[in-house]
């Protein structure tokens, strides 16, 4: 009724009649009786209005203190007798049930008492800063009943025993448990945590400590983890069903610590069933469980870190064996397939069991990087694998499958530190495929290039793309050549097909020269004339090491068409005039480089198609051997191809050559990087410069510090840089 608008003076409130002490005592007596009735659950005969009015009058007439202390005494007295009654119960279940009943009754009567004494709560309690009636009533219950020495320990013991029994698989009265945990909470958070939660957590720790130690000794890791998972789930359920939600984190932490964190090492390394074994056997379900469990642990060491390390170690070990495996090192395709399979296996594990965890992928990648680069041949082998796939391996596979394979290879490529070495080899192999017309699918070639471009940028693939461009231009040139000769590209009965290759794009060898037979030389001259007429100022240089030729040969039984390399053609044409030639004669007549000549002769005389006879017979070509035309040669096919005997793999000398070329190519790249950096920084310490250069170049290769140092020295000599006069280790950029 505060909406008083009319202004008027409130008269000082005067008490009509003073309540005397005696009247107050009588009024209290009435109230006390009523409170007793309420405690006896027998309020139906009481008039709320009357009791309220009595309390109101007492408080109004300054007997609040008498009312409040009288109330406290009455409740205390009542609860003392209740506590004694409860403690009498012999049977434990009866004891709990009785306590539960009394607690519920007490809550109810406390509400009723609070209601009739509401006026006191509103005025006296607020003014005197006392505890409100209901809260005070619960406090008394806490002190007189819950913390009664005959009740407290017995109650706690029984509750813990019930929980223990539930853990052992018994069914217990959960609603009873819920009442008591609720009771502790209602009596105050501190009561819950001190009188119940702390002992409960301590008991849980002991229980799980003992249980986990015993269980892990008797069971396999996967069984143990199953059990741990069940236990953790149970604890969460327990909290949900009858404990306070604040306990959840605490018990979870304890269970996780005792069940998992303390046993992670054991679980990981357990023989025949530990996580190591699971990874090896790709046990997805078990690993998935392990992931879930270990993920919970973050202290003291993150659980997932352990699994990750194990996985990485495992990958490294298997990978290391693989890259050092002699058998695989003999067959690049097998080698790369091994790598791909290894990666696929772990990728499957990570995707299916480890929820595609990014960090696991990172570890896997790091592991691969570490061992792939141990084997120096990795770039070459990967390129050879692609070569194999693009020559024949992909035949009959759909575009999608092919794309997947290439995608996986690019993944391996990503691990390579010496990407420029790969580029070198890839260029060589690609050149062979393009010139020999061996590539089965132009689309596949281009998609591979696109992937590499995506991976390393335009620079990396510009030369490779230039090669494709040359091929296209050559086709046009060939057409023009044909037109100029009047519709046929035959010169003196020899059909000439020319690929014009741009220097720098292709892995051309400068030293590759040989004296071509006169009829061929004539052809070449015709073409050269035609080409230079169109493109004046260019220089054409023949690359006999890269060409091939179709020959018609007459043997004693029948004619054959033979496809051979340019070198082999030169040799075979020699036998048009003579039947027998010594090795030395051939060298003089053709001037083919020794290694290439030996290989060409070997493939003609010692391989599948023995067009020539060698004297003496044997697998290898010696300087003293002599060769003769094998007129008795027979073959079922009309056309056949004499494959050049070349281990697809490089020989040691070639390898060193490639290596040397790679190193030469690196020099300008390193120098360019140094100059770029110094130009922007002007001054730099030696170590900082080295690390900056390394970071800039890692996309292509990892330069050796010594190598960089040499480049710096060279740049100083050429006066791009100078050493600081005062600090020997500091460089300055000279504009």
């Amino acid at each position, binding site marked *: *009724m505060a*909406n008083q608008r*009319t202004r008027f003076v409130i008269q000082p409130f005067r008490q009509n009649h003073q309540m005397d002490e005696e009247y107050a005592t009588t009024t209290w007596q009435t109230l006390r009786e009523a409170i007793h009735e309420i405690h006896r*659950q027998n*309020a139906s005969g009481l008039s*709320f209005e009357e009791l309220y*009015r009595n309390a109101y009058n007492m408080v109004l007439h300054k007997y609040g203190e008498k009312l409040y202390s009288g109330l406290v005494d009455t409740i205390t007295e009542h609860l003392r007798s209740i506590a004694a009654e409860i403690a009498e119960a012999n049977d434990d279940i009866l004891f709990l049930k009785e306590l539960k009943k009394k607690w519920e009754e007490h809550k*109810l009567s406390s*509400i009723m008492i609070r209601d009739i004494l509401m006026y006191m709560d509103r005025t006296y309690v607020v003014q005197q800063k006392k505890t409100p009636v209901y809260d005070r009533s619960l406090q008394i219950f806490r002190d007189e009943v819950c913390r009664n020495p005959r009740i407290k320990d017995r109650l706690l013991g029984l509750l813990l025993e019930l929980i223990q029994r539930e853990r052992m698989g018994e069914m217990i009265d959960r609603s009873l448990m819920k009442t008591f945990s609720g009771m502790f909470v209602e009596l105050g958070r501190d009561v819950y945590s001190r009188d119940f939660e702390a002992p409960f957590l301590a008991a849980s720790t002991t229980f799980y400590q003992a249980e986990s130690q015993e269980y892990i000794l008797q069971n396999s890791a996967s069984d143990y983890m199953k059990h741990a998972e069940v236990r953790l789930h149970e604890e969460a359920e327990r909290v949900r069903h009858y404990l306070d939600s604040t306990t959840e984190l605490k018990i979870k932490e304890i269970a996780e610590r005792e069940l998992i964190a303390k046993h992670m090492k054991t679980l990981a390394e357990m023989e025949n069933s530990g996580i190591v074994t699971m990874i090896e056997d790709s046990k997805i379900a078990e690993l998935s469980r392990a992931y879930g469990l270990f993920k919970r642990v973050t202290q003291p060491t993150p659980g997932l870190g352990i699994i990750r390390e194990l996985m990485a170690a495992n990958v490294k070990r298997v990978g290391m064996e693989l890259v050092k495996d002699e058998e695989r090192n003999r067959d690049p395709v097998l080698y790369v397939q091994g790598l791909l399979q290894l990666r696929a296996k772990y990728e499957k594990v990570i995707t299916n069991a480890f929820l595609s965890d990014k960090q696991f992928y990172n570890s896997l990648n790091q592991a691969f990087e570490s061992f792939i680069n141990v084997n120096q041949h990795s770039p070459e082998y990967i390129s050879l694998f692609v070569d194999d796939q693009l020559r024949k391996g992909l035949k009959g596979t759909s575009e999608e499958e092919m794309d997947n394979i290439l995608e996986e290879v690019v993944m391996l490529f990503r691990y390579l530190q010496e990407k420029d070495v790969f580029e070198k080899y890839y260029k060589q192999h690609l050149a062979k495929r393009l010139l020999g017309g061996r590539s089965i699918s132009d689309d596949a070639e281009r998609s591979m290039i696109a992937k590499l471009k995506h991976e390393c940028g335009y620079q990396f693939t510009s030369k490779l793309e230039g090669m494709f461009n040359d091929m296209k231009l050559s086709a046009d040139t060939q057409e023009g050549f044909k037109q100029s000769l009047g519709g046929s590209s035959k010169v003196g009965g020899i059909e000439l097909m020319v690929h014009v290759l741009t220097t720098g794009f292709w892995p051309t060898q400068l030293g590759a020269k040989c004296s071509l037979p006169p009829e061929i030389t004539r052809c070449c001259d015709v073409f050269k004339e035609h080409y230079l007429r169109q493109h004046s100022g260019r220089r054409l240089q023949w690359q006999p090491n890269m060409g091939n030729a179709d020959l018609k040969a007459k043997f004693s039984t029948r004619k054959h068409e033979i496809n051979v390399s340019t070198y082999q053609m030169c040799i075979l044409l020699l036998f048009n005039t003579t039947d027998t030639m010594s090795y030395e004669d051939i060298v003089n007549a053709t001037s083919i480089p020794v290694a290439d000549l030996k290989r060409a002769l070997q493939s003609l005389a010692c391989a599948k198609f023995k067009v020539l006879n060698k004297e003496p017979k044997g697998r290898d070509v010696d300087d003293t051997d002599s060769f003769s035309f094998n007129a008795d040669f027979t073959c079922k096919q009309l056309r056949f191809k004499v494959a050049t005997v070349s281990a697809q793999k490089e020989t040691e000398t070639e390898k060193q050559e490639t290596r040397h070329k790679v190193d030469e190519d690196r020099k300008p790249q390193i120098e360019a990087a140094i100059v770029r950096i110094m130009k922007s920084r002007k001054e730099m310490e030696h170590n900082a410069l080295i690390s900056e250069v390394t970071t800039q170049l890692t996309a292509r290769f990892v330069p050796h510090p010594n190598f960089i140092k040499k480049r710096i020295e060279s740049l100083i000599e050429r006066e791009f840089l100078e050493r600081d006069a005062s600090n020997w280790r500091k460089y300055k950029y000279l504009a």
Partner: protein
Amino acid sequence: MLAADPTLKQTVVQAQASARARNSMDPIKLIASDDSEIILDRRAAMVSGTIKNMLSGAPCDGSQFTESQQGEVKFKEMNAATLEKVVQYFYYKLRHTNHVGPLPEFKIEPEAALELLMAANYLDT
């Protein structure tokens, strides 16, 4: 019932109307010191914290006071006029709770003010 008093009659009509309107068959009877009675909607009576406490409590066990069982409350120290004004206020409050804008005036005669103040204190309104 004080049928002669027009305002009280109005109050009762109001009570019955609102009870019907809310489809609430839950009237409460308030009795003044001279035994005159006012019947009103339970929700209106609940505006008073004291009456609310009297009437709440779980049904069908020993936790109900007589008032709650019988649905009537006797105020031995409150006269009919004051009680009537109080009930009027209950409806006034009920109608204008959550009201936006200026409120209509609730008229109180100066001579009744003291009695009403005491009643308000008593009823926790």
